[in-house]
């Protein structure tokens, strides 16, 4: 399993994660090595085995649809990089 630099750039774009030109060769090399190790799985016979999503085979618990949280906007926005009048600021999205 060998990933090209273009493969890495495509995955990085999907992950919304900047990988600089200086990093791309090393990332391609190390991801290829990880995927090579992971490739051992392909030789395993898993015919008829149900995929396991939860160690205890439990179903998602539901709760009554009731309000349980109080307003904590100020507390949460104290951690935001940029806010104004209680709104999160981002670069202009619509010109």
């Amino acid at each position, binding site marked *: 399993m060998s*990933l090209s630099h273009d493969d*890495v750039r495509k*995955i*990085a*774009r*999907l*992950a*919304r*994660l*900047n*990988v*600089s030109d200086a*990093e791309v060769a090393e*990332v391609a090399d*190390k*991801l290829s*090595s*990880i*995927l*090579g*190790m*992971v*490739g*051992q*799985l*392909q030789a*395993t016979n*898993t015919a008829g*085995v*149900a*995929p*396991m*999503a*939860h*160690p*205890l085979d*439990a179903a*998602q*618990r539901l*709760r009554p649809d009731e309000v349980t949280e109080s307003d*904590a906007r100020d*507390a*949460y926005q*104290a*951690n*935001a*990089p*940029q806010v104004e009048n209680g709104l*999160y600021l*981002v*670069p*202009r*999205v619509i010109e």
Partner: protein
Amino acid sequence: MSALHQATLAELGDLIARREVSAVELTRHFLDRISALDAQLNSFITVLPERALAQAKAADARLARGEGGPLTGLPIAHKDIFCARDTRTTCASRMLEGFVAPYDATVVQRLDAAGVVTLGKTNMDEFAMGSSNETSFFGPVRNPWDTARVPGGSSGGSAAAVAAGLAPAGTGTDTGGSIRQPAALTGLTGLKPTYGRVSRWGMIAFASSLDQAGTLTRSAEDAALLLAAMAGFDAKDSTSVEAAVPDYAAALNAAPEKLRIGVPKEFFDEGLAPDVASCVREALAEYERAGATLVEIELPNLHLSVPTYYVVAPAEASSNLSRFDGVRFGHRAADPADLLDLYERSRGEGFGAEVKRRILTGTYVLSAGYYDAYYLKAQQVRQLITNDFARAFESVDLIMGPTTPTPAFELGAKTADPVQMYLNDIYTIGVNLAGLPGISVPCGQIDGLPVGLQIVAPHFGEAPLLAAAHRYQQATDWHRRWPAGWA
């Protein structure tokens, strides 16, 4: 009686109960040691003297009213993955360098309610991704047994702090071995409970089907004390299990005489250092002398646990870490050209190299055209590995083997090759995939470096697990050994 910083939680609790030491005195003792000695280890990211002394004063007042419990006034350190209200919580990442948690993790809240004092937040691998504590944005942690060596990871800060007597105990999290492996490498008792036993609420998520909180302590008895306060159903964690919490302390002395111990031949493969194998065999012989029967068992799919994990865990991580977008909290890149640039550069600058590798691996295995070949396949193999353990537990009470293939290695020895680093967790990862409880207890030393015995129990078997570890610690003193220069 050993020095205060060498004592177990149980011993310190006795001193407090007899009024021989106050919570404030105890807290000052550990804060002083941290400020005098931690420069050599880098085990804390944030020390919390004001919070700790306020909690200690409150604990002393509570004790004076006769309202204390077994943990009241005892100081511990929290891995910096647990949110603590109004306290910086970084997960050892540049991404969260300035993040101040607006709420308490359930683990923190429950230990606070028990009267525990929080000394500070310990260093770790960034987002708990690592096996050597070398991926932290705040620099590597060093092992007090040999400061040229790693303490293991990802809960390496808690491990180093407890091993050096900077804290009597610490919390950790274990997704693929991140409590048991550092416990083995620093001579501690490291407990990873059953998946769902301890709430994940407020514990920064890495791989949600594997993550579990636990403890790094000097003894199994101390692990039982902390687990009793931490465990139990929490409606805020959707995978928290609604099961009664047994009296772990009472169960410590209830180990059966005729214990059947499964010894997987796969745990003693060619990757295991021969001198580690000797230490573990000697520990097994100790159990035999105490009346246990050793049964050779097979876990035929165990060799697939590392590749399975490195599909499942990165897949879940890539999803969990998508919340770090540079908008609502966390690092934000300067002067973004547009929204995409904001996302990509904030994440590119905020995450370190190992975290990036895992996000990219996870994104790849979940991407269109590869999902069935990687993710679905890994989920199927995960089921096979889990079936192996279930079959083994039909004929044995516990499974035992090594925790790690080697003792602590030198800083930098494995950073060049991620796959070599991942193989450190070869004996621990299967336990996470199957959601089982496991513990590492010190069982010997090689050239002055500790070695760990791993014990695994069926789901919710923490009581017999702790009892078996406690019995071994009654008969041996490996858990009371102390690194030279830290007495």
